[in-house]
């Protein structure tokens, strides 16, 4: 029996051998993106249970192979392991591509929390997930204030617009998952429509250095990224649940992520938030409730060489505006300012009455990318956004439940981007953008603040990055943008003539069709074309392992936005008439920046300095008073000046011991116009100091005390004027310029994390904002004329990771 078996085996083996077992496989292991040989790759031959190693040229040889399939598992340090099956039917040559620079190419997250900067020579700061989670109950604008030099311009406490180095609105680009947000960002009381809980990482880039996103980022770029895809079989999620005393609010946000080794993935995320009326230390802020719902879905297949993804997000925000901020005329405003507190103070309520905003935003994106050997990566993207903004005012009659402002903005964008990274020392990136936008404003019974318009954009850019040596890196970019705005707007004939448009723009009047009569109005069809050039050049130099400096020059150009061109009407919360100007030219910024970074184990320092000159800077300034049956209204017109802004942002962190850390963030900025007068709405000097105690042994316990000290802005343009009070017949001063006094607030925050099982953990965080319930007003809050800012707020947040 034994002999028989041996005989059989010999026969089988011998038969095989005699037939086909003299084939050779020659293999070559190469780096995918630049074709370089990979030395010492480990090749495991499954069928033979044998290992061999590639030689200096990346080659290896397997001899005496039999006909049939063999499976090779190729691995190398720093590369993704690759398994391939080869059909052997003769002598075979096989070239195998591994990707050695997978991390440098920013393709795959090695850990869940790896953060990568987008730019090399711009002033960029990253906010990580842990920081963002602390702001789960707040907004994007609140979270961004973690960055030194970033402040916000607010309308109350729920409408928070980020401000980078004194610039905001259309001067900032916000990218949500590589889609430039198109959400009527021209409006100062239009907060970005983003759920902070959908962000996993946020990059704040000061200035226009990141040209691939746009050439008009005079203030900067905010890049929001969702969670990175991990290519392995996994299922995990996160739920944040919280409540707060001020506003008696709650919030819940949950996300679930499923990924597969095959590259497929699907993430879903949803949030719900509600707050009632907030409280200042001395009174209720009536009608300041907020309700917000959002969700997003992210799915696709992502491999190293190619991939596609689909992303859809939806957000619906309903925001109450302080009731007392809706005013009738200038005397009404003076009375409220002088009384020092809001005239309407009611009991707590969750109800959101008029005035209020309701904004919904849809964002849909599809991308496909493919990576080519020895070349780089090609990325194609289409995105669609639909933003609907409804603003409800205090109105009379049947119109009280109708929105006074109703704007529907739809945007389609096509983007093609090529990233040549086969030579990591000399990367190049270029692309083309096509965009079509349509704004539709139905008749609401109030003159349209923004008319119907169509906008066409074309953009093309090229950026490049050279690593000269280990210490020196240079990058540069150039971009061209074309914009066309084609609007149809009804002007009141009296206004048209008062603006002087009857002389300059007589040719754009559209005559009424036969049988039509526009009465006291005329219809105009302004079409404007803008050509914009932007550029950037920067250098990063490592002095040694602890110090580096970066310097950057950028040129940015921003055409006037629809508000600047077309505004024409009464703005209730400001009790002023705002007038755009069809004659405005694009503003052009030249920004020089320099950063010094020192990094050590227990001491870190980052100093950002900048000097930004903006020619034809567009801003609103008061030009007079206009009388009506409702009383007088100040008139504010868009004008242009040559502005310059400069400042220093400091971030400093020092570990006294393993457990105590001191963090300081200080921002100093000045801004002047061409007559050396201060610019309006420039943030005052501010300094934040935080002492944190951390003890990892106590369930990762940490507690911090933060001091927020904002000085009084003593440089401001004096736009005050006197107006006649008809009731008394006296002239009274309307003080809309003087900034409120300095304030100093303290905040407390503590957190602990408990491991519930190997894969689940629970974090509990307790925070107290405005610890001493200090009354204060912020210069950059547009409702500062009417009411104090928020009083003490105690927040409790539970976070479950699973």
């Amino acid at each position, binding site marked *: 029996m034994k002999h028989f078996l041996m005989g059989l085996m010999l026969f089988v083996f011998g038969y095989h051998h005699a037939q086909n077992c003299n084939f050779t496989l020659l293999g070559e292991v190469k780096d995918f993106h630049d074709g370089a040989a990979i030395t010492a790759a480990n090749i495991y031959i499954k069928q033979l249970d044998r290992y061999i190693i590639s030689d200096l040229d990346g080659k290896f040889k397997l001899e005496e192979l039999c006909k049939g399939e063999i499976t090779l598992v190729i691995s190398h340090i720093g590369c993704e392991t690759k398994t391939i099956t080869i059909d052997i039917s003769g002598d075979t040559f096989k070239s195998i591509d591994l990707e050695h620079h997978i991390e440098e190419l920013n393709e795959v997250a090695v850990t869940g929390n790896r953060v990568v900067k987008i730019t090399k020579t711009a002033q960029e700061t990253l906010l990580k997930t842990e920081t963002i989670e602390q702001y789960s109950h707040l907004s994007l604008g609140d979270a961004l204030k973690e960055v030194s030099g970033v402040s916000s311009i607010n309308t109350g406490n729920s409408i928070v617009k980020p401000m980078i180095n004194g610039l905001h609105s259309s001067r900032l680009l916000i990218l949500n998952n590589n889609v430039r947000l198109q959400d009527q960002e021209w409006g100062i009381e239009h907060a970005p429509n983003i759920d902070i809980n959908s962000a996993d990482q946020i990059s704040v880039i000061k200035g226009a250095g990141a040209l691939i996103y746009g050439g008009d980022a005079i203030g900067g770029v905010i890049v929001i990224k969702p969670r990175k895809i991990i290519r392995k079989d996994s299922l995990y999620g996160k739920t944040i649940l919280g409540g707060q005393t001020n506003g008696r609010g709650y919030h819940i946000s949950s996300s679930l992520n499923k990924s597969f080794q095959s590259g497929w993935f699907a993430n879903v995320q949803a949030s719900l938030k509600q707050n009632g009326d907030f409280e200042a230390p001395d009174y209720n802020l009536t009608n300041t409730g907020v309700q917000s719902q959002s969700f997003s879905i992210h799915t696709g297949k992502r491999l190293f060489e190619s991939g596609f993804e689909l992303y859809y997000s939806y957000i619906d925000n309903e925001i109450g505006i302080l009731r007392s901020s809706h005013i009738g005329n200038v005397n009404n405003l003076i009375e409220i300012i002088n009384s020092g507190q809001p005239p309407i103070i009611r009991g707590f309520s969750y109800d959101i009455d008029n005035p209020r905003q309701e904004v919904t935003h849809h964002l849909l994106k599809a991308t496909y990318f493919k990576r080519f050997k020895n070349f780089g990566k090609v990325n194609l993207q289409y995105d669609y956004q639909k933003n609907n903004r409804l603003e409800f005012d205090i109105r009379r009659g049947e119109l009280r439940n109708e929105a006074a402002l109703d704007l529907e903005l739809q945007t389609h964008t096509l983007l093609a981007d090529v990233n040549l990274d086969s030579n990591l020392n000399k990367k190049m990136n270029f692309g083309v953008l096509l965009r079509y936008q349509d704004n539709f404003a139905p008749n609401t019974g109030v003159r349209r603040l923004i008319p119907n318009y169509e906008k066409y954009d074309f953009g093309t850019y090229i950026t490049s990055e050279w690593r000269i040596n280990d210490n020196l890196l240079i990058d540069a970019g150039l971009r061209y943008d074309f914009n066309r705005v084609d609007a149809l707007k009804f002007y*009141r004939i009296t206004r048209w003539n008062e603006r002087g448009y009857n002389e300059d723009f007589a040719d754009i009047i559209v005559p009424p069709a036969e049988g039509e009569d526009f009465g006291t109005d005329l219809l105009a069809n302004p079409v404007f074309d803008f050509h914009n050039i932007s550029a950037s050049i920067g250098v990063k130099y490592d002095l040694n392992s602890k110090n580096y400096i970066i310097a950057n020059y950028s040129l940015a150009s921003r055409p006037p936005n629809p508000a600047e061109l077309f505004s024409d009407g009464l703005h209730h919360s400001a009790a002023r008439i705002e007038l755009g100007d069809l004659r405005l030219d694009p503003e052009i910024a030249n920004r020089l920046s320099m950063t010094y970074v020192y990094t050590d184990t227990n001491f870190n320092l980052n100093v950002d300095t900048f000097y930004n000159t903006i020619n034809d800077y567009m801003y609103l300034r008061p030009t007079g008073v206009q009388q009506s049956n409702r009383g007088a209204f100040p008139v504010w017109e868009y004008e242009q000046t040559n502005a310059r802004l400069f400042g220093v942002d400091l971030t400093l962190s020092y570990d006294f011991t393993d457990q105590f850390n001191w963090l300081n963030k200080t921002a100093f900025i000045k801004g002047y116009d061409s007559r050396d007068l201060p610019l309006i709405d420039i943030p005052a000097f501010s300094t934040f100091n935080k002492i944190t105690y951390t003890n990892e042994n106590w369930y990762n316990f940490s507690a911090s005390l933060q001091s927020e000290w904002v000085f009084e802005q003593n440089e401001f343009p004096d736009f005050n004027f006197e107006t006649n009070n008809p009731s008394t017949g006296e002239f009274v001063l309307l003080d809309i310029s003087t900034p409120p006094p300095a304030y100093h607030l303290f905040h407390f925050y503590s957190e602990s994390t408990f491991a519930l099982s190997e894969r689940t953990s629970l974090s509990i965080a307790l925070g107290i904002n405005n610890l001493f319930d200090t009354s204060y007003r912020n210069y950059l809050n547009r409702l500062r004329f009417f009411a104090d800012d928020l009083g003490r707020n105690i927040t409790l947040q539970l976070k479950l990771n699973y």
Partner: protein
Amino acid sequence: MNTNKSNFKTMKTIFLNINAMKTTKFLLGAVLCFSLFLTSCSDDDDGGTPEQPNEEEVITDVTLTLTNITDTNDVVELKSVDPDGEDGPTAPTITITGNFTAGATYTGVMDLFNSIEMEDITEEVTVTEPDEHFFTYAISGLDISFSRSANDIVRMDGNKLGFETTWVVANNPGTGNITVQLWHESETVDDSNELGTQTGGEPDVDLTFTGVTIQ
């Protein structure tokens, strides 16, 4: 032989690409369909001429007509006309027709009109929404005893609207000013001093007529 192999490999790559392209095409198609679906949600077709704005809330003509209770031909009319509304650049034209007769008593009635939409606002204020409105008056330099008429409209809270008023002119000639304000959505209103006081409202009308004469 190597060429053969690489050909085969190229073919395989192409095949894979086709697969990937199919998926991509399918997905792009799906995305386009979805955006079309979203786009079609827009309720209106926005091509062509936009609808001309109708301005239903504007008060262009404010008139306070004061009629002598004993002589209907003795009328004082205080009128302000702002044909292009509150945000139009034209200032209102204020006209004062007639003089008060010393010693006489007048009944004042307000009239509000929107000449842009040819709409009667008086009815809206007095009939539809009297509880959300309140007139207040101020008289300076004129010896007039002012009160809200007995048949003035009474709000739900018991305060008189101030739509119909009684002006008892003293035997004392002079020239002075009359202010008329119409408040919308006041927090509190009070007619106990007849001229009226309020808090928290915003003015729909805020006009002062200067140079009114008693002779």
